Structure formats: structure tokens, C-alpha cells
């Protein structure tokens, strides 16, 4: 192997592998192409934007994606169902628990064991998923502040997120990529003492969320920077497949936790905040961020109710085995199945095809909410300023791991 050729030098090797969509000669005389990214902090990862500008005005935006493509779907059809879960983590790495939950639900539905899981397992799943939702929204809000020039919220949010990551590390041993929710159960029960510490954390967090709203969300500078910027009408959003806080920011009360009522969400009380256009137009950048901040309050409510159950009716018992329902052999009948769930960014979906003869799926397609939410960017940014483009990209809250998969 030592003498194998690893690289063949050629002058043309450094040629551009992703050409521009617009050609210089097709532009009008006052138009110019500006390239933003892929290495730029305001693009939230490796996103490259080809921006056609006329002075300060954005004429068109063409996103070039795929820099973080790690062949999720190719991997998923070459390993058994349960071994795909670590790959699922790496899609939306800021909200891995939520993606795992959706994936595990899909395979459980194919096996026909959904709804038979112990209640304690379901409550733990919802608990960790909502903790992760908080962490994801904290990054979204904090980094959005940093994008448009407010640095303090970024530190505050990452400080509180750090507590959540440490709690989740205590649960499963990893900070971000958990592999905790298994098909048919969980890796482990919650560690002893977790419920009480989590309650303490929640009572610490509540005033911090109010403080965030007062200092950041309702800040005059922030409102003036984001209100009436990047307005997304509902019908356009639905046509582009936009979901999650972005569509709710446009005023549509559409949350899959309520609509589909999966897991134990029907037993839990919470509200679905929607954008009202309080500071500007319905569906602007401010509404989206406000919806995320309100969802943090709702997640806290859900966590409180889960903890109540996990200490009360479904408390820890000596004979509780979170892996009792984990199947030894995962071989669903031949079928197609589409499963969806509410991720912090929107609707995550998995399409499965099982052939009934092997433990390996024939095809797994992942529908990432960030991918769909990003596709609407040219509609939002057209006709605005370049500076507003940065504000719009931040308000979409993309994770490039999920866009590129």
C-alpha cells in the first residue's frame, strides 16, 4: 500500500468544481456578483452564497451547498437500522435527540411496537428532546445576536446551553452526539439524582429567559434591525416546504407535536406561539426570533411536566429496564413508511423502504427542515440590502450538517 499513488499533480486540479450560476457577461452593466462564504461566520457553517447585486441591493441569491455532505443516505442503506442512529445524530448536530426520536419512532412504527413502550421511556424521550430543543434555540437566538452585532446575548445563551450539554452528558456520556434513544427504548435509564438537578436547573433558567427577552428580544436596536426585514408570507412558505418556527413566525399555528400528537405530547399541556407582527409585519425576522424565545418558555413547561411524571407516577423502580422492548433483530415487514416529527428547526421526516428480507433498509431518505427552510432564501432576500441578507440568513437558523447531510 505504501507505494500507492495518492495524488497526481496536474495544473488543472485546482479548477473550480462548483461554477457560478450567473455568468459575468449576462449581467447588466451596474450588476456585480459577490461571493459570501463558505468560510464566513455569518453563514453559520459552510454555506456559500452567490449574490448578484446592484449597488447595495440584492438582485438574486443562489446558495451553493454540499460542502458538508457526508453521504447519510448512502451510509444508511449499508448498515442495519439501529446502527444508523449515530449518523442521524450528525445531521442536525445541535438537536441530535430530536432527530433520534423521529428516527426511532419511524422504525418502531415499521416493527409495530410503537405505543407499547413503557411510559417512563416516552417521558424520558420527551424530556431529553425538549432539553435539546432549548439548547438548539439558544444557539439560534444567541448566534443571531452575534450576526447582527449584539454580542452579549451570544455569551449568555452559550452559558445556559453549556448547562444543558453537561446535563445531557451526564445522561448518556456525550455532549452533542448522543446515540441515547434506541429503537424500542433507551440506552440507559436517567442517572440517579438527575430529575432533582434538572428541576434546580429549570428554576435557574426561568428568570434568565425573561431577562433575555427584556434585554435582547425587546431591545429597540434589535427591533429596528429585524422588524419588517425578510418577510415570509404563509402561502409562499408552505409552497417552499418551510416548517417549524419559521412558518409559525409567519402566523400559522402548525406544530407537529400538536398536529400528530406523537409520543406523550397529547398528555402534556403547552401552547404553540405564533408570530403576530407586533413590531412590524407578520413573518419578519423579529417574529421568527420571538417565536423561538417563546418556544423556550413552552419547552420549560414541558420539561417541568415530564419531571413531575418521572418523579411521581412513573418514578424510577428497581426492575425498570429501558431496553426491555429493544428488539434483538430489527427486520420490519416489506413496506414503505414516511415518519415525521417536530425538530427545533421544523419538520424532520424519514422515508424508509424495507424489503422484509434483510436487517438493512433498501432506502432511507431524510427530509431535513434546514434544507427546505434555506431554499426560500432567494425569495426573502430579493430586493433587500446586502446587510439584510445577513440578518435573514441568521433568522432562518440553518444547520449545515442537515442541509448537506
Amino acid at each position: 500500500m505504501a507505494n500507492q499513488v495518492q495524488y497526481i499533480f496536474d495544473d488543472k486540479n485546482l479548477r473550480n468544481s462548483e461554477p457560478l450560476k450567473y455568468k459575468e457577461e449576462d449581467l447588466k452593466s451596474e450588476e456585480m456578483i459577490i461571493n459570501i462564504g463558505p468560510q464566513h461566520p455569518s453563514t453559520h457553517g459552510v454555506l456559500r452564497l452567490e449574490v448578484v447585486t446592484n449597488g447595495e441591493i440584492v438582485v438574486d441569491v443562489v446558495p451553493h451547498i454540499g460542502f458538508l455532505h457526508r453521504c447519510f443516505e448512502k451510509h444508511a442503506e449499508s448498515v442495519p437500522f439501529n446502527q444508523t442512529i449515530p449518523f442521524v445524530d450528525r445531521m442536525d448536530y445541535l438537536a441530535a435527540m430530536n432527530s433520534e426520536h423521529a428516527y426511532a419512532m419511524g422504525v418502531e412504527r415499521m416493527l409495530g411496537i410503537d405505543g407499547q413502550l413503557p411510559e417512563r421511556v416516552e417521558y424520558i424521550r420527551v424530556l431529553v428532546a425538549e432539553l435539546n430543543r432549548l439548547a438548539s434555540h439558544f444557539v439560534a437566538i444567541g448566534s443571531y445576536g452575534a450576526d447582527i452585532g449584539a454580542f452579549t446575548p451570544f455569551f449568555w445563551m452559550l452559558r445556559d446551553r453549556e448547562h444543558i450539554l453537561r446535563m445531557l452528558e451526564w445522561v448518556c456520556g456525550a455532549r452533542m452526539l448522543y446515540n441515547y434513544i434506541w429503537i424500542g427504548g433507551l440506552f440507559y435509564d436517567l442517572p440517579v439524582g438527575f430529575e432533582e438537578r434538572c428541576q434546580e436547573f429549570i428554576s435557574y433558567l426561568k428568570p434568565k429567559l425573561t431577562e433575555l427577552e427584556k434585554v435582547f428580544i425587546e431591545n429597540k436596536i434589535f427591533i429596528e434591525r429585524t422588524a419588517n426585514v425578510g418577510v415570509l408570507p404563509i402561502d409562499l412558505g408552505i409552497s417552499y416546504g418551510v416548517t417549524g418556527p419559521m412558518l409559525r413566525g409567519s402566523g400559522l399555528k402548525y406544530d407537529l407535536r400538536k398536529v400528530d400528537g406523537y409520543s406523550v405530547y397529547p398528555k402534556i399541556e403547552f401552547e404553540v406561539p405564533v408570530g403576530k407582527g407586533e413590531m412590524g409585519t407578520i413573518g419578519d425576522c423579529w417574529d421568527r426570533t420571538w417565536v423561538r424565545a417563546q418556544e423556550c418558555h413552552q419547552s420549560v413547561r414541558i420539561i417541568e411536566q415530564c419531571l413531575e411524571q418521572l418523579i411521581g407516577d412513573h418514578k424510577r423502580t428497581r426492575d425498570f429496564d429501558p431496553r426491555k422492548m429493544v428488539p434483538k433483530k430489527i427486520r420490519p415487514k416489506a413496506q414503505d413508511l414516511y415518519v415525521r416529527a417536530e425538530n427545533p428547526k421544523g419538520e424532520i421526516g424519514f422515508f424508509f423502504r424495507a424489503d422484509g428480507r434483510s436487517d438493512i433498509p433498501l432506502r432511507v431518505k431524510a427530509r431535513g427542515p434546514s434544507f427546505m427552510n434555506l431554499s426560500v432564501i432567494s425569495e426573502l432576500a430579493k430586493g433587500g440590502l446586502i446587510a439584510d441578507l445577513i440578518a435573514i440568513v441568521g433568522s432562518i437558523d440553518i444547520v449545515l450538517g442537515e442541509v448537506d447531510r
Partner: protein
Amino acid sequence: MKFEEIVEYIKSELGANVVLELIENATPKGFVTNTDRLISVMQFLHSDEQLYFDSLSCLTGLDNGPEEGTVEVIYNLYSIPFDHHLMIKVQVDRDQAEVPTVSGVWKTADWQEREAYDLVGINFNGHPDLRRILMPADWQGNPLRKDYEEQEFYHGIKLEE
């Protein structure tokens, strides 16, 4: 409306020949249609007042392998106001994988079809901007084809083993 009612309604409005085959072992249930009628079926599903499938949740390209010799495109539709689900499938020949685009009906189909074109190698006729989306523009082959073999070198870099 239940699935059976939806199918009956479509048959009565568009003719029985649009539903080639019902897919029973699927969640949500659906039917197979042919590529010639695909656009008219989709436009009807999208804008009919009783169905109103306003969102295309997921578009999947799928290769059945060289033995079967077919590729499929699977559309998962959802109606937000009525809470209906429906799965639509079309099947085409593997060597001439050409399906009409539905990007005129749902704008989200634009990127999703580009992804299916990129990874599975399905041509969407009439697509406004059919370029590769996840792989580089000068990549060879379609990675999710069952008989895919990756190229030996990419820009002079040895790829595997």
C-alpha cells in the same frame, strides 16, 4: 376524507386510469400513477378544494437496482387544513429515467428534484434549474444508484483504498 374516499374522488374526477395500482403496505397509503398524467394529477391534488394538498413534505428518488431495471419517485403529500396524507409513486425505466417536474406546483420540488437528480440520476423534464446540488458539479455518477462505483481520482486525489 379517508384514503379510499380520496382515491374514489380522484378516479371520478380524473378518470380511473390515473390510478394504476394501490399501495397497501405503505404508511401513509398511496397509489402509483403514470408519468404522462403526473402533472395533471398533482395540479388537481394541489388545488382541488376538497383535497388541497398544499405541502409536498418529501420527494424521494429510489433505485431498484439493475435487476429490476426501474427507478421510482415517491411524493409524500400533506394537506395542512384537512390533515390528509397521501403517497404518490411513479416508476420509470432505469436507463431512461425521465419524470416531469412538479416544481411548477410546489416550489419546494425545485431543490428536492435537484437532489434526486444529483444522487439517483433522475432527469426531471422541464425543471427550471437542473444542476447538481449536494455533489460537486464535475462529479461522475450518481451515488445512490445500486450499481454505483465511484471514480478513481477526483481532481487528482485518490478516492478509495
